[in-house]
């Protein structure tokens, strides 16, 4: 049975100040799943996670159990790393999760570490999350003191799990898992070429699993209630609930744990009190600014991972008026569920200006390693800016599409795609807004541009 609205698997302790202590956490059932897990074999836990159809909540939506299964059986040392570098614009869930329920993350990680036979494990927390770092470090210290971390956990001889909280220092790119590993190793946060994937060769050259905060926080309830139960709560090949962070032009923005199958229309109208000021939807960014937008005709699609990639009600992204964008092998790009950051833009939004701000972000955050991304994101910002400021030139739309097409698929990591995809998506669905901006560029503005 799909989860009804109000089902809380990972946000149940929001608002409970006491849950940050071991005692308070235990009072609401905390660390019970760990007891159960330690009575199971690691392989049995992996089977439950596979059966749960838990998918990565950080952006890509990759099946967590499959990822865990990639770790070579004969690995000498394995690491589990929690990605708490949340910085995708529009996304504000991991910060809340860590702040309200740090022990759920710790419990999820200890169970995952047991299943993966990982001893030395890390939480990479974004540098700017100073309040959350303090909360998390305190929880880790208490978990050590109470025997939930360290050696012979809960009396299980030989089971050892260490957790170190590692602070970043300001770099969006460190949310990319291989950049994160480099940053953890004390290097500049530049992504690594894949393969080898981290599950084969990651932190300190050992097999490493990198999972998002929300992903790991779902592990205790999967162990507690079973993978099949978790899977049934979801939709299609996506188990469980989903946290959606809604921001922008709605009456009641917020962080909500919701059923997988909820549509964007339900989300905006029923959960968030509708578009603000009685206005209408112009566009919705469905999963952080890296993802192509939806327009007002595409809001009846569910927020589920596969639906956003394949539902034919979502128009595919184009490179030009008559040319589809090819994701490779003729696959079309519609959009993706991404990080759960839903940004609503009302019908009075200046689309070229919003797109410029998104491009400014990517130009700022490109690590500089790959030429198409380093140069291309800067060019996109420059052209988008002049269009937004009324200095656009005829041909600028084709120029932005051409630059985006030159970046997409041609870089080591997905940051290049993350800039190119929304640009192409906005150009596909809101072309008239850009054309109007260029048309209305005044003569004085044109002179300045020349």
């Amino acid at each position, binding site marked *: 049975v799909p989860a009804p609205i109000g089902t809380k698997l990972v946000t149940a302790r929001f608002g409970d100040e006491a849950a940050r202590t071991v005692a308070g956490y235990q009072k609401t059932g905390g660390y019970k799943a760990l007891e159960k897990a330690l009575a199971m074999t690691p392989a049995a836990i992996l089977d439950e996670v596979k059966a749960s159809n838990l998918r990565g909540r950080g952006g890509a939506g990759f099946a967590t159990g499959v990822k865990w299964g990639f770790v070579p059986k004969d690995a000498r040392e394995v690491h589990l790393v929690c990605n708490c570098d949340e910085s995708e614009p529009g996304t504000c869930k991991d910060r809340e999760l860590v702040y309200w329920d740090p022990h759920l993350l710790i419990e999820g990680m200890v169970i995952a570490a047991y299943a993966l036979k990982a001893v030395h494990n890390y939480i990479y927390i974004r540098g700017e999350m100073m309040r959350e770092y303090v909360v998390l470090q305190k929880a880790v210290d208490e978990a050590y003191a109470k025997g939930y971390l360290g050696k012979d956990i809960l009396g299980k001889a030989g089971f050892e799990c260490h957790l170190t909280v590692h602070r970043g220092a300001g770099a969006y790119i460190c949310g990319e898992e291989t950049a994160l590993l480099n940053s953890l190793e*004390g290097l500049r*946060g530049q992504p690594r070429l894949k393969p080898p994937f981290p599950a084969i060769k990651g932190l300190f050259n050992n097999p490493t699993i990198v999972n998002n905060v929300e992903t790991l926080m779902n592990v205790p309830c999967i162990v507690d209630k079973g993978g099949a139960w978790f899977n049934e709560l979801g939709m299609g090949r996506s188990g469980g609930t989903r946290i959606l962070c*809604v921001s*922008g032009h709605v009456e009641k923005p917020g962080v909500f744990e919701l059923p997988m199958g909820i549509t964007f229309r339900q989300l905006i109208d029923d959960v968030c009190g509708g578009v603000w000021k009685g206005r209408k939807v112009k566009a919705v960014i469905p999963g952080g600014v890296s993802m192509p937008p939806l327009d007002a005709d595409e809001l009846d699609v569910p927020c589920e991972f596969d639906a956003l990639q394949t539902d034919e009600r979502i128009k595919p992204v184009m490179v030009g008026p008559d040319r589809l964008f090819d994701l490779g092998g003729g696959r079309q790009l519609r959009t993706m569920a991404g990080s759960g*950051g839903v*940004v609503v833009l009302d019908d009075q939004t200046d689309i070229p200006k919003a797109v410029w701000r998104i491009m400014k972000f990517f130009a700022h955050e490109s690590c500089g390693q790959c030429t198409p991304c380093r140069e291309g994101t800067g060019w996109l910002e420059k052209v988008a800016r002049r269009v937004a400021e009324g200095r656009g030139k005829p041909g600028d739309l084709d120029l932005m599409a051409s630059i985006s097409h030159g970046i997409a698929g041609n870089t080591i990591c997905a940051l290049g795609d993350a800039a190119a995809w929304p640009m192409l998506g906005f150009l596909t669905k809101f072309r008239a807004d850009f054309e109007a901006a260029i048309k209305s560029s005044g003569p004085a503005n044109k002179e300045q541009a020349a």
Partner: protein
Amino acid sequence: MFRNISMSLEFSADAQNKIAALCERYPTKQPVVLAALHLAQKEHGHLSDDALKLVARTLDLPYAHVYGVATFYTMFRREPGGKNTIRMCTNISCMLRGGYEVLEAFEKKLGLRRGQSNSEFSLVEEECIAACANAPCAVVGTKYFLDLAPGDVDKVVEELKSNPRPEGEVV
């Protein structure tokens, strides 16, 4: 002219203990570089060449490596800054609800442009700080200022003057 004459900086005993404890958590000392840079910035205000040398010496790393790391991450500053660093987000969710207007109000109130500092404040135009549901927002050390409007700026600045939130307090 005096470029080769440099003051030798040191870490406090507390910072030395923290770094030594952290070195136990990793197979080598190199992963501790971010933490050591945070500590150096806390104790010496900014990451001068001498502060970078201190980190390099402490962790047995080449100076060039430490320099490369320190200049990659935006939280590290090579110049002196204010006691409070106001990180005001202007990214999409904040922009849609007036983030730029709040940033401009901070500029006017503090007499600083974005990116500038005086002894009391640094004003930073920050990328998304993951508090989008309460946009526009700013973060100063461990304190978030949520649902801001330009009219809130006076109150925020006065609060920070009487109760500073230096980022170093969490290191």
